[in-house]
């Protein structure tokens, strides 16, 4: 009989030893057991234990635990300046004006209505604005550096990476730029970047009008977590006088479902709250599942808030369609093979009671839903089957 070996006990023990060593030798940096890349990471990201992406999300979505509040306060207060400028110097940039792309990004990011990719592209635009490059090549290199430092600042945000990639692609690809003189090319780039906010807003509107067609009278929709696009779809459907009800999952640990339920109740849409574990129980009554996405990967699968995968599995086994709403700038060049094949986005979970130190807690914030569990994707490029995603990405990047 096949048995899983107990190696995980061994691994844990080794990890603990390592951590102990690390604690001992934290003063002499060169003997650290960590790999160079991860040390660099630690230097940039003030608190690698927590995903910055989810920190901002939680801040935006308003439902915040006390623990979270402290974290985000700390993040908003002390870190960015110290950590970032350090990073900037180490990156070989001359910050002659004290300008930092990461700061810029964090500023944009704090605006609750702004999508992550928009923040990324705007901050890249401000790199162009403050740049003193005189040739296109120079500018490109500068942008590349800025994009890289942005990406490594928060490796957990997929739309940040995707947004940076998209803009970089635009800069290198657009043929119109080649024929213009440098200044007008530069101003055109900035103009495009500033317009991107509108594009993102328009994308949401397009998705909403596409998606609301799928809502029919008398249907029951299960929604997981809070996604602005999904909310927009539901709002559009409600405004066009469709009669439907919504089941919201609670969305532990940041309980984003509560906020969605709140907002929907304001629109007079019948809402029912479920705890996350009641999904299978109530799937019988559900006609379709709507989810958002943090990122759409090349396979056509999505990376989304923890729990999406199991909802999709349940829906599939009961033959219910799963629709995912995501703007096309969330298409990312990733190909996760399984759940662990991604940069983990960690976030603290408040259990309400103290957890003994012996007990481990799974703090990963998101999971990967493979494409075979998704029925259709609503994007601003139209209603797509999951296999179209790779097609689009290949067209753009090859």
């Amino acid at each position, binding site marked *: 009989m096949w048995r899983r070996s107990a190696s995980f006990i061994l691994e844990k023990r080794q990890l603990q030893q390592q951590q102990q060593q690390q604690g001992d030798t934290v003063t002499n940096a060169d003997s650290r057991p960590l790999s160079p890349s991860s040390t660099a990471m630690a230097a940039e990201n003030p608190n690698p234990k927590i995903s910055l992406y989810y920190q901002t999300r939680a801040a935006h979505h308003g439902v915040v635990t006390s623990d979270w509040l402290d974290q985000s306060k700390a993040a908003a207060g002390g870190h960015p300046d110290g950590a970032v400028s350090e990073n900037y110097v180490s990156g070989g940039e001359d910050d002659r004006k004290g300008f930092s792309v990461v700061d810029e990004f964090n500023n944009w990011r704090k605006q609750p209505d702004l999508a992550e990719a928009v923040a990324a592209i705007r901050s890249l635009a401000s790199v162009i604005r403050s740049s003193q490059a005189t040739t296109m090549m120079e500018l490109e290199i500068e942008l590349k550096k800025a994009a890289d430092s942005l990406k490594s600042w928060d490796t957990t945000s997929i739309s940040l990476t995707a947004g940076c990639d998209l803009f970089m692609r635009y800069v290198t690809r657009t043929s119109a730029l080649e024929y213009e003189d440098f200044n007008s090319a530069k101003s055109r780039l900035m103009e*495009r970047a500033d317009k991107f906010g509108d594009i993102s807003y328009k994308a949401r509107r397009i998705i909403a009008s596409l998606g609301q067609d799928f809502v029919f009278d008398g249907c029951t929709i299960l929604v997981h977590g809070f996604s602005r696009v999904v909310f927009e779809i539901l709002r559009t459907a409600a405004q066009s006088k469709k009669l439907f009800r919504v089941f919201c999952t609670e969305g532990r640990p940041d309980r984003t479902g509560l906020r969605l339920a709140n907002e929907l109740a304001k629109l007079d849409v019948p809402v029912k709250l479920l705890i996350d574990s009641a999904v299978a129980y109530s799937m019988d009554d559900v006609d379709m599942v709507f989810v958002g996405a943090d990122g759409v990967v090349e396979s056509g699968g999505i990376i989304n808030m923890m729990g999406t995968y199991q909802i999709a599995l349940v829906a599939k086994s009961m033959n219910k369609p799963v629709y995912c709403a995501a703007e096309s700038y969330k298409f990312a060049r990733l190909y996760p093979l399984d759940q662990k094949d991604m940069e983990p986005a960690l976030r603290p979970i408040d259990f309400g009671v103290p957890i003994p130190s012996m007990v481990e807690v799974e703090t990963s914030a998101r999971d990967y839903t493979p494409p075979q569990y998704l029925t*259709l994707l609503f994007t601003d490029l139209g209603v797509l*089957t999951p*296999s179209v995603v790779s*097609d689009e990405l290949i067209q753009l990047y090859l």
Partner: protein
Amino acid sequence: MPDVHSLVNDFVIKLKKRKIEGSKATAKQTVELLRSFISQQRLPNSNQAAALIEAVRAVGENLIAANPVELAVGNVVRRVLHIIREEDLSLATAAVGGISLADESDDDDFEQDDHPVLSATAVAAAARSSLRPPSLQTLLEDAPHAAAAPHPSSSGGDSEGKSKSADKNSVTRKLKHNVIEAVNELVQEISTCHEQIAEQAVEHIHQNEVILTLGSSRTVMEFLFAAKEKKRTFRVFVAEGAPRYQGHALAKELAARGLQTTVITDSAVFAMISRVNMVIVGAHAVMANGGVIAPVGLNMVALAAQRHAVPFVVLAGVHKLCPQYPHNPEVLLNELKSPSELLDFGEFSDCLDFASGSGSPLLHVVNPAFDYVPPNLVSLFITDTGGHNPSYMYRLIADYYSADDVVVKRKSAS
């Protein structure tokens, strides 16, 4: 003009009364009607394409509303609209190319004022972007063409701008001609799609295979004939296709051509499927997600085929390709046929009698015409352009229809 209108009305009535059988016949008649409509349409001097599109769309709406179940009508209307857009675009780009005909169109100079501001490149780019489905690539660059249009025109458009708008004018006279030319090609395409599909038969049907089909489809018949003509020997199981039993007719035709044919009842499909190498069927319409609206009973065949891992191949001409999604297919896109196909009225008249008992008959007869086969049950589509995966349908649709028409139609027509 009244002549065309009466033609349109005749056709609408025919559609309403379900006088036209089969999507191919419908598609062909629709496109021929639209052709004569376009050829008799008088066009204004300016903005011909838009006027033509508007006119065709109005007629198309009527036709679609006359028989919303016959999706081929809508498909053909959209194809024609797409053709008009395409021809308009190619004329615009030809104008940019600088085939200068400025001299002979001087008399029309007054018209120039209508659209002198837009440079030719901007027009072409805008048109192209409306034709092309949106993609990630155009996400960032889409708007600049419109926004930055004044830029390029100031650099290069000075001399060209003037000649172009004059040029465009004369060129648009050709629009109608070109559109009709292209519509003729479409007629040709629809009438030859059988042969195009049948040509691929040998690649799919191999020696000594057993093929199963349900009901009767002209496309499937030609497909099988083509394989037979290429000296393939194979057996065909024909499920009779209740309640219309078109399978009987198909079996007769096949046997007459010397094909080994076996007729089975629809309920025997599952029993026989394990002996079958491939299921080949026709379709009523193919939806954008790769799902199929097919004659009733096919979903059962598809499920049986999946159960035994038998390839389920659907033959469909491109006029059956519908750019819509089956939001709620069983309800919206189905049609109930006459119960007389199922039951003899004489025998059952007692229980069907409204006058007896409580007033409503105890016996109901439901005779739906179509099934929806979800895309995951379809292994392959064979169209006149070749074999395609269900998930590839969106690309064909992007090639054949422009995104504007899909949305507008859906809003106004359904």
